[in-house]
């Protein structure tokens, strides 16, 4: 039995022999690089027209041009501003209301059912209403984003608070923690893993809603840049926009994960 397992392992190793000649940190890059090479070849050979799928090098060239002309900076700065404002307002309110409903039974009974009901409404179905009420200006965009950013933080904060170990409450009672100490030194640290998860989800949704909001009507922003480029068949610019979103999404997610690493060092969990 064990001999058989060993035998299997050996054949696996010989199959992966070529992999070992490549340094380990580069393993994750193998597939993307292969795809890029094929993609470039397909475009160069004009198997697919450039208006549908421009070559990676053409996209890169466009990328550089947009940076040099300052065009990209203009769009990116307004997009980041909208997303961050919306995120801060939405996540901030979510954290606050999550704390209030989590800590207070009365607030839970009066607020939570309504909020839960609102959560089931698909956010994007509200767009027409928002345009009717607030027009297509900044206010309506930021409001949309904050609404999207609100729920993940709200729900996870509430959940985190309700998951605090009741036995630790008994300890805090024995040591006469004040109400404030109870919140600051027991409840929030204990709920922090959930809160951070909520923030991560919320950041992701902020970007999503931002793109939709900018595509529904704007005169600047990366979403607008994509929409505008599509109208002029500038597929390379569309790709630049997508790449920008990917990069920023990854960047902000890594930021929160860095916080998780620092703040949740104490956790003893399965690490794969």
């Amino acid at each position, binding site marked *: 039995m064990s001999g058989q397992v060993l035998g299997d392992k050996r054949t696996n190793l010989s199959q992966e022999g070529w992999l070992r000649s490549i340094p380990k940190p580069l393993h994750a890059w193998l597939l993307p690089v292969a795809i890029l090479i094929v993609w470039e070849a397909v475009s160069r050979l004009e198997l697919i027209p450039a208006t549908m799928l421009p070559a990676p090098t053409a996209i890169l060239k466009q990328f550089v041009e947009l940076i040099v002309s300052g065009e990209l900076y203009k769009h990116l700065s307004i997009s980041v501003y909208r997303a961050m404002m919306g995120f801060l307002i939405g996540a901030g309110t979510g954290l606050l209301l999550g704390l209030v409903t989590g800590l207070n039974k009365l607030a839970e009974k009066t607020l939570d059912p309504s909020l839960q009901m609102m959560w089931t409404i698909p956010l994007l179905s509200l767009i027409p209403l928002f345009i009717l009420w607030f027009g297509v200006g900044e206010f309506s965009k930021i409001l949309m984003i904050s609404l999207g950013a609100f729920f993940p933080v709200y729900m996870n904060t509430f959940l985190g608070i309700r998951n605090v170990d009741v*036995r*630790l409450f008994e*300890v805090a009672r024995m040591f*006469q*923690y004040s109400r404030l100490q109870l919140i600051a030194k027991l409840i929030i640290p204990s709920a922090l893993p959930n809160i951070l998860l909520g923030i991560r989800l919320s950041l992701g949704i902020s970007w999503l809603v931002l793109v939709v909001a900018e595509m529904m009507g704007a005169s600047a922003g990366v979403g607008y840049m994509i929409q505008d480029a599509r109208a002029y068949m500038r597929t390379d610019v569309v790709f630049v926009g997508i790449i920008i979103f990917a990069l920023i999404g990854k960047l902000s997610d890594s930021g929160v994960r860095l916080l998780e690493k620092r703040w949740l060092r*104490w956790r*003893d969990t399965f690490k794969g």
Partner: protein
Amino acid sequence: MAADTLVIERLNRTFTSPAGDVTALSNIALKVKKGELITLIGPSGCGKSTLLKIVAGLDSDYSGTVLLNDKPIEGPSIEKGFIFQEPRLFPWLTVEKNIAGNLSLKDSKVRARVDELIALVRLKGFEKSYPRELSGGMAQRVSIARALLRNPEVLLLDEPFGALDAFTRAHLQEVLLDIWQKNRTTMLFVTHDLDEAVFLAERVVIMNPRPGHIRTVLPIDLPFPRKRASQSFQELRRKVLSEFEKVEEPAVDRDHGAGI
């Protein structure tokens, strides 16, 4: 008058449930002198943990008198240190911060006392460790230090070493005696381990279930440090055990026998 830290008189505690009332404690009377180390022993269901919770102020639904330094118990407070069966440390705090709890380590007095206690429970070098990095015995020592930080009038221990292996348990019993001899903290120690009860106590309170009451209180007049293998120790152990056999005889035919 000799200073009685804890006075319990005519204490009754009944749990009401739809299935009927259960008398957990019936007419308990006990006086604990300042600096005394008392162990409470009895089979499960004898109410020993309930008694401890009442003294801690975690359970106030009783009738009778419970006085700590002549004052009735009013809820949990720092005068009563409580050590649970599990360490119950805050997992996001280091050892030293767990001990400090809601007091600030920036306060030089707190800092000095925490360092002193870390040395007392023999955890030097682990100040900055997180609970997940500690063994069960070490974690329980942190919880002892945490309870001692506020110099409680009485330290209540609810089967604190019950979940530990025999070697760790013996070690922690010695640590606890060492602390007791240095600090002379009044201690009420609940256990279901016969050896532990005799090894630690100046007096052993033997409790009997259905309804929970005190069967007898046995003084253990052995000098510290005690030798478990000594004849006098074994004799006292047998004496305590014989009290149990008397206690449990009528119950055996009804359901589970003594778990001792």
